[in-house]
């Protein structure tokens, strides 16, 4: 099974779930469901052609070269750190999580000079504070703890 066939099957399942379960549960009224059903049909018809098209394509075994385990781990770690940063803004405010995000991400990406690791986030966040909060008088998230 090639990549497009897998995508086609996932989209097909998505459309079936939307049509039979999500729309009846989340949309009340016939008129309100016209457009959601229209978009589902749009995706479904396009997906039908994708599946048909994918049968004609010879599967390419080396379509995408996966990186090594360490790289995958580091990449997922960065995405995870970003998610944690976003989720903690509500508690810690804007500046602490973004400072930590910058330091950790730059360090994972290979910045080794600790002066850069501290100075760049510090200067950047101070500039943001003065530009956005002082000059434009727009409050960034304060957080519940700080």
């Amino acid at each position, binding site marked *: 099974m090639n*990549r497009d066939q897998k*995508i086609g099957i996932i*989209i097909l399942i998505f459309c079936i779930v*939307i049509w039979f379960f*999500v729309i009846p549960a*989340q*949309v*009340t*009224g016939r*008129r*309100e469901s*016209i*457009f*959601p059903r*229209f*978009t*589902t049909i*749009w*995706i479904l*018809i*396009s*997906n039908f*052609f*994708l599946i048909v*098209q994918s049968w004609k394509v010879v599967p390419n075994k080396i379509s*995408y070269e996966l*990186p*090594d385990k*360490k*790289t995958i781990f*580091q*990449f997922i770690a*960065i*995405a995870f750190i*970003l*998610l944690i*940063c*976003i*989720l903690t*803004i*509500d508690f810690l405010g*804007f500046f602490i999580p*973004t400072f930590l*995000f*910058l330091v950790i*991400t*730059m360090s*994972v*990406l*290979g*910045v080794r000079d600790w002066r*850069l690791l501290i100075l*760049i986030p510090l200067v*950047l966040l101070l500039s*943001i504070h003065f530009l*956005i909060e002082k000059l*434009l008088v*727009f409050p*960034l*998230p304060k957080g519940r703890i700080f």
Partner: protein
Amino acid sequence: MLENIVNGMSMVLHLDNILASLFGVTIGITMGAIPGLSDITAICLLLPFTFYLKPIAAIAMLMGLSKGGNFGGSIPAILFNVPGTAQAVVTSYDGYPLTKQGKSGKALKMALYASTMADTLSDFILFFLAAPVATVALMIGPPEYTMIVIFSLVVIAVAGSENFVKGMIAIGMGLFLAVIGLDPVTAKPRFTFGSIELSAGLAVVPIVLGLFVVSEAFRQMELILREKSSRNLNNRYQNQIKKTDNLSDHRVSLAEFKHCLPAIFGGVGIGSALGAIPGIGTTVAAYLSYMHTKRASKHPELFGKGALEGVAAAEAGNNAVVGPNLIPLITLGIPGNLAAALILGAFMMQGLVPGPLFMQQYAPMLYALFTVLIISNIFTFTVGSLFAKYVRHLTYIPKRILYPIVIVFAIIGTYIFRSNLFDLIIMFIFGVLGYIFVKIKIPITPILVSFILGEILEKRMRQALIISGGSSTIFFTKPISLAFFLLTIFVVLFFIRGRKKNKI
């Protein structure tokens, strides 16, 4: 008329108005140049300050912000492949490859020339054609509008994707995302899963920043990690941008400018026509203009790899919308886009009510507005030239430092839009989705365009069905609507035939 023109110009030509315009343009370009902030953000943030200004100065500042921000959005798109605004996405197609070739100065200058030229020409279109275009626009009812939007979406899927079918799936996804939130007619919640945040619907800013900025940052970080792990430490991961001191790489020669003129005029035509229709907006115009130029080019294979015409077409297309977008605002009181809606707010705050009688009651005001637009263009050109000269040096920042910073700006841009922390989660989700979509070759621009047009498409479709009593024949019995339906089928068939021929 001459008296009105003179009166209008004399209303504008005061130092405070000119300074307000200059301030607006400078702040607009600066904010547009920061990924995540845009002309809309700039207008939102500075709108309260316009209370303290006289009407003309306030409008001069807002128009300056809008025009400056529009150009500024192309700066990060060209330099870092992280478009600050939705319309700048198309500019990045060829702008960033030019940067990678060490020609960022050339790309920025072409973007500036194309955007200010198209903007000025579109302002003249506003000036001379406001009344007749408004008459034509009045003929476009809900069924015609529905078919025009469907036609635009199919054209985008056909022309803008490597794989037409995947383009159509992307369009469907964007339309589906637009459904989340309250029903536009009955205000009943749909797909909210009990979440208060989702009942307001998905906002365009977190989707733009997620799909284009965060996902691009993820891709770049993946590259850095791959190269780091393969122990290829020959500075490639620190800086993939070719460094060149050759001045000709940072200038647009007369021959190059002449070569790009058809792309600019094409963009002006497409952008102006679309700008007169409320809601279609700059992103669609940029996309269609780009595709038109690519199709008309003798070397379409160069597009996406650093074709200067591509930058010119995209910028001309999106900037040509600005002038005609004010036509429905001035003549009918209908804002053509979000920026126009905010400007409408500013008009009303100043006691001016745009609408059918505006041109009769405030004729000098219309000419004053025109003068303001031209002055803003002059400032965009001069301030933009300074930016283009110096800002290109930012590309020399190592990527391992740059992309974490870009993500922080994306967080700020998303939060500033409506002070909602939930939008940050949406931005993150779309960042991951955008990253995956690019890997599986589902184009992300059609998702954005159809999301933007989705709400208006549904409204018009539902209105048309209400008018016809639920019969869908209304879309095929009105002449303009039928013409666009046939045109849509023709475009699809023409494309399939073209693809088959190419394969042979």
